[in-house]
């Protein structure tokens, strides 16, 4: 079999989902222009505000993009399509790969849109900075891609919309996507355990001259990824055994 045709149609389906385009592309863009636009000359923590806000919105938009693969998995489970796929030669791995890759494709669109918007309000970065920032964002999204698969098998279609919306908002808020958060004390040490904090920081640290993100960032992302993958695998097995 040729997995590329399957992947191509998966991506096409993702692109044709308008509601999804609005949430992962339009919302962050609108927020960026309304908030970063008027504050384009403000400095925040040594970084120009538009740049600060661009990374924040990029982390939020991409998080929504990769998590939404969970919505599509739940949808396909609910109409019985997953069972139909299980009686084809498509492997479980290829099925999930297609979901994750189409989520990442949307994430790239979201990043591209925000980078263009950033340039429009005066964000200037070197080619290396752009590439590093985008690369680190993509790596930081890995735990969210796994979380999407997990939620897709855990929740029903009806509960998934609010759950995904609430979860991304909370992750984004606590991680610092929407604005500055606490920088010391007990709360800060909690925040530093969130993958969304490092998703935001990873992108910023590469830009403000701080070099690569600290080891702590990689550890937090790796632990979240491994733990979520374990749970997802268990939930997947329970789900397929029951049907």
């Amino acid at each position, binding site marked *: *079999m040729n997995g590329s045709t399957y992947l191509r149609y998966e991506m096409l*389906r993702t692109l044709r989902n308008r509601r999804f385009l609005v949430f992962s592309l339009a919302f962050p863009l609108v927020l960026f222009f309304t908030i970063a636009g008027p504050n384009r000359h403000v400095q925040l923590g040594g970084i120009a505000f538009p740049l600060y806000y661009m990374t924040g919105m990029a982390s939020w938009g991409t998080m929504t993009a990769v998590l939404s693969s969970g919505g599509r998995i739940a949808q396909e489970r609910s109409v019985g399509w997953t069972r*139909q796929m299980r009686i084809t030669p498509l492997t479980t791995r290829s099925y999930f790969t297609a979901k994750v890759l189409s989520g990442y494709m949307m994430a790239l669109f979201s990043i591209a849109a925000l980078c263009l918007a950033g340039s429009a309000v005066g964000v200037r970065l070197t080619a290396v900075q752009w590439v590093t920032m985008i690369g680190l964002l993509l790596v930081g999204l890995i735990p969210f891609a796994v979380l999407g698969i997990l939620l897709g098998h855990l929740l029903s279609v009806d509960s998934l919309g609010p759950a995904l919306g609430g979860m991304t908002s909370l992750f984004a808020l606590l991680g610092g996507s929407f604005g500055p958060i606490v920088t010391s004390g007990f709360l800060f040490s909690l925040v530093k355990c969130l993958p969304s904090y490092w998703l935001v920081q990873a992108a910023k640290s590469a830009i403000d001259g701080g070099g690569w993100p600290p080891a702590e960032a990689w550890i937090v992302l790796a632990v979240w990824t491994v733990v979520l993958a374990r749970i997802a695998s268990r939930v997947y097995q329970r789900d397929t055994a029951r049907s």
Partner: protein
Amino acid sequence: MVIEIFVAKRTVPLTGKGTQLVEMGSGDPHYSDQPFEVHLPDDVVRDRVENVDSDEKTNGVIRLTDLRKSYGEVRAVRGVDVTIASGQTVAFLGPNGAGKTTTIDMMLGLVRPDSGNVSLFGLPPSDAVRAGAVGGMLQTGSLIEYLSVRELIKMVGSLYPHPLDLEEVLDLTGTGDIADRKTTKLSGGQTQRVRFAIALIADPDLLVLDEPTVALDVEGRRDFWNAMQAVTARGKTVIFATHYLEEADAYADRIILMARGQIVADGPPSEIKAKVGGRTIRASIPSVHRETLESIPGVVSASQHGEEIVLVCSDTASSDGALRDLLHRFPEARNIDVRGAGLEEAFLKLTSEDDVDSDAMDESR
């Protein structure tokens, strides 16, 4: 080493039912470079090859051995044993809750049996599915969004090693005129036809259809089976579940009658029809021998309780004849009642006799 070599039984297209089979060797170009071959260690494959009956390889046998499945307290399938030869069209007939769908789900590897074994062409279901030898239309399920009918069928076809030509499938299933429509803009009947096309694009050796016509009106049902006959004419092995006796009778070579999780009858349609599709004549006749009643032409079986007699006939024609004969011989017959035996009723009758035995057996296990 690749396990396709013993699934690689392809039927000759368009040569009628029960066609001869062609065994394909490992050198067949179809199977030379598929990316999704299942690679197993050589010793495992050797073991499997040795364990696979050579007859099963050539005949493409589907074998269910003492399948059992319970959901909590409900014993959905209670010991199903079936062997189906390649090229047969077999109907699983039974009322709702008979265990048809559970049996089919186990056959496809979607549900793991509590005990027992499924072998498709000598392979476990998951391997046969992986090799692309199986196409299925499940009882429930609809289509995914954001694709046209053509795109959806193409997408599924791309998963198989040797899919049928897309246009041919559109033509066969009567989906050509809706090919460019979105999958969400279809009527129930059209959706069902697209689901059939999805099962068919695989060009599978085994086609499994779980109540394929359940959502269709009379006309849709007729169209469906017309398309189906074009497929069975290609010598495919087809297994379908239905609760319509007429469908099973018209389109199957063999009917497996299920009730309460068990097979209660298995044979050619004429035989099954005689058992369940018959008509019963009830009447009150004083002092008559059961043997006399059974000797009446057209009567399959007769029973007697005091003056009350019950004659079972295989169909309307024989019950008409039997009734004339009966009135001729016993003009004194009263309270005459002739009716078609309902399928449910017939199932209950067929199962009630051996139910006690099987329950006792289950408990002794």
